């Protein structure tokens, strides 16, 4: 199947750019690799016939958040490798924390019944009509509350960014 090859390509791309994001020396390269990861994941959404999710994923993550990241990294000029070597206890703590996260993930996925998505192109859940119906009918209250949460965060960020004292 043609879509299978696309799936393998996108997965390989997502894994490669994810790993490269961690390994890159320059922060700008890391940011760009992370953007590439988002694009690969957006491609996966399209394979699952969730076009709306795919596009929103790209608009929000690649188009907005990563651009701001890129902005910050460029203006801070983090290019020079000034990162001092971490003390031993930080490295040890990082290894332990990482291992614990790995354990949790393994535990989660072992209990989960992994199966192939049957006929992904017939699934309608990711299309904008279905999503709107679910969000505005079944999950009306949580959706509105979370939008208020976003508004609060925005107002808070503007307040913090203001120079004058209030």
């Amino acid at each position: 199947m043609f879509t299978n090859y696309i799936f393998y390509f996108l997965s390989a791309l997502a894994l490669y750019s994810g790993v490269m994001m961690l390994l890159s020396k320059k922060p700008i390269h890391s940011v760009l690799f992370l953007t590439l990861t988002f694009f690969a994941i957006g491609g996966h959404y399209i394979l699952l016939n969730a076009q709306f999710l795919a596009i929103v994923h790209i608009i929000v993550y690649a188009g907005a958040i990563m651009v701001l990241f890129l902005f910050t990294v460029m203006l801070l000029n983090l290019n020079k490798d000034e990162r001092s070597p971490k003390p031993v206890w930080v490295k040890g703590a990082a290894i332990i924390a990482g291992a614990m996260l790995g354990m949790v993930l393994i535990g989660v996925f072992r209990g989960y019944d992994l199966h192939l998505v049957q006929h992904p192109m017939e699934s309608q859940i990711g299309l904008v009509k279905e999503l709107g119906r679910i969000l505005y009918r079944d999950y009306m209250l949580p959706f509105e509350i979370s939008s208020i949460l976003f508004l609060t965060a925005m107002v808070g960020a503007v307040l913090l960014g203001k120079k004058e004292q209030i």
Partner: protein
Amino acid sequence: MILFKTIFASAVLLLSLVVAMYSTLIERKMAGFFQDRLGPDRAGPWGIFQPLADGIKLFFKEEFMPNTADKFLYILGPSLTMLIACLTSAVIPWGPDIVINGQTYSLQMADVNIGILYIFAIVSIGVYGIMIGGWASNNKYALLGAVRASSQMISYELAMSLSIIAIVMMTGSLSMRDIVNQQQGFNWNIWYQPLAFLIFLICAFAETNRSPFDLPECETELVGGYHTEYSSMKLGFYLFSEYINMFISGAVMATLFLGGYHFPFIDKLGLSPNAFAFVSFLVFFAKITFFGFIFMWVRWTLPRFRYDQLMRLGWKALIPLAILNVLITGVVILLNQ
């Protein structure tokens, strides 16, 4: 079907490239007209070979790369800009269906049900080419130009999306095809949403980095802006993509507000489907040309904005107006129900 799609995609790509190429000539001719001179007239009759000469010149110019530049990103910048400029045309309906040997073919590459959002996604990632190029040049002027360009594009993206929400509310669909089909005859969206149209038009100028919003390449302050360090065809790509963007944004505006390929009394002509499609396409193209003319007219008429004026206009005028427009549209739709 695949064969037709391939041919059609290549035709659209070729069309946007050729139109962009000749926009440069028309732009210079119009600049000549506005400044009371002739414009290019040496290469061929009326200078029609001038774009070819320019292209050849750009290809054969010396390729210079600053040795402090980030090599890969320096090349990626203009390539990405060019790629992204060509992507938008995929969801634009270029005309009604045509019939070949009894088979119906759609003159739209992909009728995805989220067409408008696709355009926004492309617009929002359009920043990358400029930012990467400006940063990779490793030059303060280029970086400043890139930062200006991207903050301008991010700011005007918001007002642009908000102005479209009113159209989506009226149509009840995100598909470009549906939006066009709702504007049969002279029933164009511009009559119902003049404010949204005005906001979208202003934002289109800002998104394509055209005058009066061409701050990213403001010569008096920034030398050349984000492409200061670029030469040869890499510079050509940056300049060329601006004209492709102009063509495509004209097409998007014609689709959303001027009824796409519809025109009044279209059903009175009694044409065969294919001739009908051809005439419709010509009408659509005329509308795009009209927008191209406006782009050039404004460029050679209005002075450049100052940076703080640009930001004030975007955030304090256009976004509140767009939100107001959405609100009014919502109230009117509710009252009409």
